[in-house]
């Protein structure tokens, strides 16, 4: 796979492509922050790319560049992709936001789509997953399964997306288990299997018996398996790492969106917007729900999933108080997408402070 990205790079340098004739395939470029072999975030984006190719066959041609650092390099890579005749470019990490916007201004005829960001222009849209929906179901499962009434959360960076998900998981756990407590550990990395293992063990040493994570490696699952605890897989199906400990994985699926946007751009109906996808769009799913779960837990998981998928239940519906006693979501109100993107408080019951 490295070889492939190398070849892509060489192709870019050689300036293959240029203006394309009408019967040429529609070209779509992807920029990944990690390796496609991370078995998490970038892996799932690449699976989406492969599905896209499969769906359109000869009509679409895709290229990707992996391991692109967030920063000046990203702008160079995105520019090269635009120059080499891609009609549509997906940049798939928060840190690619400004580079993508810059390049989008220079190439008005190319369409850009940036994952997880908030800046848009007339040829650049954004898209993001409602990961908090998956996190809510995870929280329900964790709240029901914990015997010590202590669940653990391994966080990456204290940004709104991660904080929102911690809130979602904790509210869910509390809804089924009023006595539940949450312990949060930040590892300051999206991806460091060693550190994630340490964090998992540190939490289990302090009485945690169900682990949730907002980091990308399966290491916490493996640690939980070793010690007879339970854990939930992140971003892709990680069940093989922990046959007993694995509750389910919340899997990202970008393919429906990639196919939809590609079709829109091909048809000329594309409008840049801020797209949020979750259970309802099948962009999040529960993968490999463990057979060893008690039937009542399983039933509650399915029920919660269905309620969120159908739109009957929205996790961030008031009244919600933060842990300082302020009402942050008024009764009867559900947070809008715009408000969801700005969550910077912990809900009532979380005793930690958000690190600043």
């Amino acid at each position: 796979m490295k070889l492939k990205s190398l070849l892509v790079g060489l192709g870019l340098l050689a300036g293959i492509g240029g203006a394309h004739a009408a019967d040429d395939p529609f070209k779509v470029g992807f920029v990944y922050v990690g390796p496609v072999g991370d078995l998490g975030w970038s892996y799932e984006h690449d699976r989406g790319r492969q599905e896209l190719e499969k769906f359109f066959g000869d009509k679409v041609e895709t290229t990707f560049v992996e391991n692109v650092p967030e920063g000046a390099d990203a702008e160079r890579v995105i520019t090269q992709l635009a120059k080499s005749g891609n009609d549509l470019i997906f940049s798939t990490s928060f840190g690619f936001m400004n580079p993508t916007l810059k390049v989008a201004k220079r190439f008005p005829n190319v369409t850009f789509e940036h994952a997880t960001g908030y800046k848009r222009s007339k040829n650049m849209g954004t898209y993001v997953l409602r990961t908090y929906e998956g996190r809510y179901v995870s929280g329900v499962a964790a709240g029901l399964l914990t015997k010590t009434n202590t669940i653990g959360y391994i966080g990456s960076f204290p940004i709104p997306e991660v904080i929102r998900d911690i809130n979602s998981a904790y509210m869910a756990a509390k809804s089924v288990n009023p006595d539940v407590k949450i312990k949060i550990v930040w590892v300051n990395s999206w991806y460091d299997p060693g550190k994630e293992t340490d964090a998992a063990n540190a939490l289990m040493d302090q009485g945690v018996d169900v682990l949730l994570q907002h980091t990308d490696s399966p290491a916490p699952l493996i640690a939980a398996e070793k010690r007879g605890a339970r854990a939930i897989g992140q971003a892709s199906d990680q069940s093989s790492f922990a046959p007993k400990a694995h509750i389910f994985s919340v899997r990202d699926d970008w393919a429906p969106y990639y196919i939809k946007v590609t079709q829109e751009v091909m048809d000329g109906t594309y409008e840049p917007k801020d797209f949020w996808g979750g259970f309802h769009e099948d962009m999040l799913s529960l993968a490999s729900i463990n057979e060893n779960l008690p039937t009542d837990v399983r039933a509650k998981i399915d029920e919660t999933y269905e309620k969120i998928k159908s739109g009957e239940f929205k996790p961030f519906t008031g009244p919600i108080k933060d842990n300082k006693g302020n009402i942050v979501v008024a009764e009867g109100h559900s947070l809008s997408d715009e408000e969801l993107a700005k969550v910077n408080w912990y809900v009532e019951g979380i005793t930690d402070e958000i690190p600043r």
Partner: protein
Amino acid sequence: MDIDLITQVLFAAIKTGTPLLFIALGEAICEKTGVLNLGQEGMMLMGAVVGFMAAYATGNAGMGILGALLIGMVMSLIFGFLVLHLGANQVATGLALSIFGGGLSAFVGSSVVGQTITGFQPIEIPVLSDLPVIGKVLFSHDPLVYLAIVMAIIISFVTNKTRLGLTIKAVGENPHAANAIGIKVLKVRYLAVMFGGAMAGLGGAYMSLVYTPMWVENMTAGRGWIALALVVFASWRIGNIVLGAYLFGLASIMHLVLQGMGWSISPNLLAMLPYVATIVVMVIISADKYKEKLLAPRSLGKPFDPRQMA
């Protein structure tokens, strides 16, 4: 903090420090002969991936260790050939080896991403493991943890008490003088480089076979570089390296444990803790005597050509 938690923390600290200890010990020997190999991260990653693949293919973690040792040596031989035979710049070659190892390991390992193996099981040493606290902290680990400690003792003995230790020192301090008294400088350096490679491979295998029994790209996440720094801060003393590695492990664990206990400190600050703590302690223990500055092997980083005089 109760006694159980303290026990768990110390136990975890030893495990976390072990991969660093392997790599730092190997690099220390390498540097003592005057060769600076910055390729630790690359050799470690290759050790991790080949170790994992060998264990996966054979179903035997022992074969994984063997594979990791061998690939570590092969990688170090590439480095050795370039810097010892051809006199290439050690810093540049080492950096290249790290980058090369990172890419190659990802390429080679793509087929086993997502596979699982059963790694090593802990061995509880009879009697000793029943001791309160210490038994759990020191004597109920997996075999590689004991191996690292045994290696440190052997290396310390060899470098300080044996003729071989003197030979290594002579080559590192003054290769021309060593050459003049009949020591085959390049041969000693080759062997030291290979030893460093084998240890780095072992450190990598520890990550992929014991610590997190799986392979994913770049799973060592910079531990090779930390080990390199550790060697310098420990002023090339084996005892200090052992202390430094475990101290780093302890600080890495502590910052996670403290968060779990509800300490609200910026994770950025906490993430610095292991580095700061290790550097501060190492500076303190090596700062009081000014001659410690002279502890760096004098020919470190300089190529040796027997035809030229110093």
